């Protein structure tokens, strides 16, 4: 590994692969650091190794990744798989862990392509073994051909939930029920956004086809489900919920939940990039310009990590960020940058038509985001409940960081990834302040595991 690269791309999903490929084509030195064993990110995970028949069960959107991965493989970009990035700072110094050895390297330009994580929405029982994210179910399916073996229940809201149900259907997995928690009122809010969404009608058509297929297969889909609750002593035994005013109970050992996705912002925040609250997407995201530039010089964000746009959009954003990096490095002049960006900009615009509709249609109900039940654990790591957070607010602690100091919420191993959004919502609701003012946890490195021994053995040119 070299000590310095012209461009460092962090993440090998659609944005990172596209960015690295475009930049490498221009002859600059590109390094791609990614935690997975193979390129593709979560969306195109296991693209190179998946058996043909399972690939087709995943649908044609998944197949799109093949081209992206092979173009990247053919490029001169230096690829570092199984490499954990544990730090990034304003001087563009990147902390890496490669085969147990910690390194720091620097880069002139850094493109963060950290992708999305599933929105953590705490609800009663969500910490029980047997409750998992729908994305986790999909990863098991894609990467390992592993599926629930008996009557899985899917619950939540958003396109991924529908897609997973459809993929399971095609793989012959028995789905006991799909519980849709999307509030009915969303239809009303989404309606004005429908005409624009029709410009990207293929997504709507696809969604409708999935629904039709599920219905034809007799999979029970319940809409407007409320008061979702996972139950069991030491592991999940059943799921209870309210549907049409009636409390229902389904026995199951596996509940897969999904409440949409949000940007994975850890690295950008630790680097000091300014973040803003996005009310439509209900998440924190980095403040970016049209090229993906953050508030920190030389650090860009592309793809879902900069705001949710989906896999196709991420690819375009990756290329745009690479063009900007090439321009900043002096490899491209301004006119060439503009010219090469034209198509990606156009396609990105087309991709964006569907978003406002999806965001309104699948918006999670406030009482879920604000974790109405006091006993529900918000911080899975430190086991801090919604009630404890509300008590801290009542006690005069009016922002996320003070709540964190006082309750240890967000101080565990996941570094607040699973509770930050919920804490923002709870504190905003309880204090009557705007989410933007509640703020996000100040992110502390390392954002990925690093041991005392690894830090002690830190290798970098400066110490030699």
């Amino acid at each position, binding site marked *: 590994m070299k000590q310095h690269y012209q461009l460092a791309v962090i993440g090998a999903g659609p944005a990172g692969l596209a960015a690295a490929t475009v930049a490498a084509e221009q002859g600059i030195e590109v390094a791609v650091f990614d935690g997975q064993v193979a390129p593709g990110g979560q969306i195109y995970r296991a693209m190179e190794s998946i058996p043909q028949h399972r690939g087709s069960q995943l649908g044609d959107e998944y197949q799109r990744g093949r081209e992206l991965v092979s173009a990247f493989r053919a490029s001169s970009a230096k690829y570092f798989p199984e490499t954990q990035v544990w*730090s990034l*700072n*304003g*001087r563009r*110094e990147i*902390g890496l862990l490669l085969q147990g050895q910690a390194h*720091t390297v620097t880069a002139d330009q850094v493109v963060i392509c950290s992708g999305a994580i599933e929105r953590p929405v705490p609800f009663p029982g969500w910490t029980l073994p047997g409750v998992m994210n729908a994305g986790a179910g999909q990863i098991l399916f894609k990467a390992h051909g592993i599926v629930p073996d008996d009557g899985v229940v899917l619950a939540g809201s958003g396109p991924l939930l529908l897609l997973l149900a459809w993929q399971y259907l095609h793989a012959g997995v028995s789905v006991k029920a799909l519980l849709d928690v999307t509030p009915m009122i969303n239809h009303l809010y989404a309606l004005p956004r429908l005409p624009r969404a029709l410009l990207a009608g293929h997504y709507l058509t696809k969604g409708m086809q999935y629904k039709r297929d599920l219905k034809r297969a007799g999979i029970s889909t319940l809409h407007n489900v409320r008061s979702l609750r996972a139950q069991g002593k030491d592991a999940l035994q059943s799921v209870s919920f309210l549907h049409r005013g009636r409390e229902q109970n389904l026995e199951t050992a596996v509940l897969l939940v999904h409440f949409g996705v949000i940007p994975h912002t850890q690295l950008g925040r630790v680097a*000091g990039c300014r973040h803003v609250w996005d009310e439509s997407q209900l998440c924190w995201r980095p403040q970016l310009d049209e090229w993906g530039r953050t508030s920190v010089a030389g650090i860009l964000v592309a793809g879902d990590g900069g705001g949710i746009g989906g896999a196709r959009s991420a690819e375009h954003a990756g290329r745009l960020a690479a063009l900007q990096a090439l321009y900043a490095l002096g490899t491209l002049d301004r006119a060439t940058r503009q010219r090469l960006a034209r198509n990606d900009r156009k396609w990105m615009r087309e991709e964006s038509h569907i978003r406002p509709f999806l965001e309104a249609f699948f918006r999670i109900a406030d009482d879920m985001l604000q974790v109405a039940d006091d006993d529900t654990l918000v911080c899975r790591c430190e086991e801090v409940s919604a009630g404890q957070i509300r008590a801290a607010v009542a006690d005069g602690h009016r*922002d996320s*960081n*003070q709540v964190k*100091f*006082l309750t*240890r919420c967000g*101080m*565990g*191993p996941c*570094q607040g990834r699973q509770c930050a959004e919920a804490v923002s919502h709870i504190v905003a609701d309880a204090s009557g302040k705007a989410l933007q003012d509640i703020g996000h946890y100040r992110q*502390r*490195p*390392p954002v990925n*595991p*690093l*041991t*005392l*021994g690894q*830090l*002690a*053995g*830190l290798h*970098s040119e*400066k*110490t030699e």
Partner: protein
Amino acid sequence: MKADVLIVGGGLMGFSTALHLAMRDTRCIVLDKGSPGRHASGVNAGGLRQLNRHPAEIPLSVVAADMWRHIRELVDSDCDTRFPGQVRVAENEAELGRLEKRAALTRSLGYQHEEIIGPDELYALVPALAPHCIGALICRSDGYGRPFHALDAFRRKARSLGVYYQADTRVDAVRQDGDEWRLSTLQGEFRAPVLVNCAGAWANHIAAMLGEPVPLKPGAPMMMVTERLPHFIDPVLGAAGHKLSFKQMQNGTLLIGGAHMAELDLLQERTEINWQKLALSARSVMTLFPQLKDVRIVRTWAGLEAFMPDNIPVIGASVTASSAYHAFGFSAHGFQLSPVVGRILSQLILDGTSELPIDPFRIDRFASSGRCA
């Protein structure tokens, strides 16, 4: 807005001063440019250490230690304090010699809290320690607390006694009008006959407004905390040969400091970890506890603190202005002193004198060695 005393800085020193004044029926306003305990007060290592103090600090530290042991009587909370002692280990004869000299110095000043222990007692106290150490300096009554919880307790108690606190209020200008101090802020003017500067890393700005600039240097000592571990050590541990402060908290996490400094952007109030330097702390830990090599670091951070050239604070009255007082520049070891410093200031303000010797902390001690702002 008007009161008897205006205190700039909502950290531990500010709230401790306000609390002691309020206990004697004095009305205080505490202003902070951010949130309470945002910097050094909230994020320091929480050491309650008399061990190896600067001789000038010993009288204060010894009284403070007693106040911490009875801290519940003062602030209705134990601030999560524990008193397992603090040790400073020696890894060779030269280091042990230095520690012995130190213990003799403390004794010669008339204090008994520091003593030398040999390897047998050291390993009985810290069985997990690597086997090469040969002795240690120990203060058995030392310990630690949880800084943000302490800050919160001081703040609550002060407020319950009528102290008015306002966050997000930066002091833009200070002027004395007759017998009255006037502080201008964007949130309006605050007035009182007495002014106290507890502004931490920004205290030199307030001092400069009073016409007595000080060579304060802001710094950000780096800290790290690990995942929770099984209980394996009681005392807080330092080492004669390493910049290290090492303790296991009640919840099992290890808190590791070492006064290695982060990169600092004072304007943005941002600190950035210097990994090469923090690696030195990790190496110190590996030397003393090699069995911890696979222990995960969960967080690192650096709190903003004021350092003075001689590493002891400024405590006392202004020499240029009347009815103005300072308490700042604790140089990364102020947490333990905070209860007594508040009491000293309250005595200076209300009685005109303090029970403890504070002459070494005069603000004009730097005047001869050249001034800087």
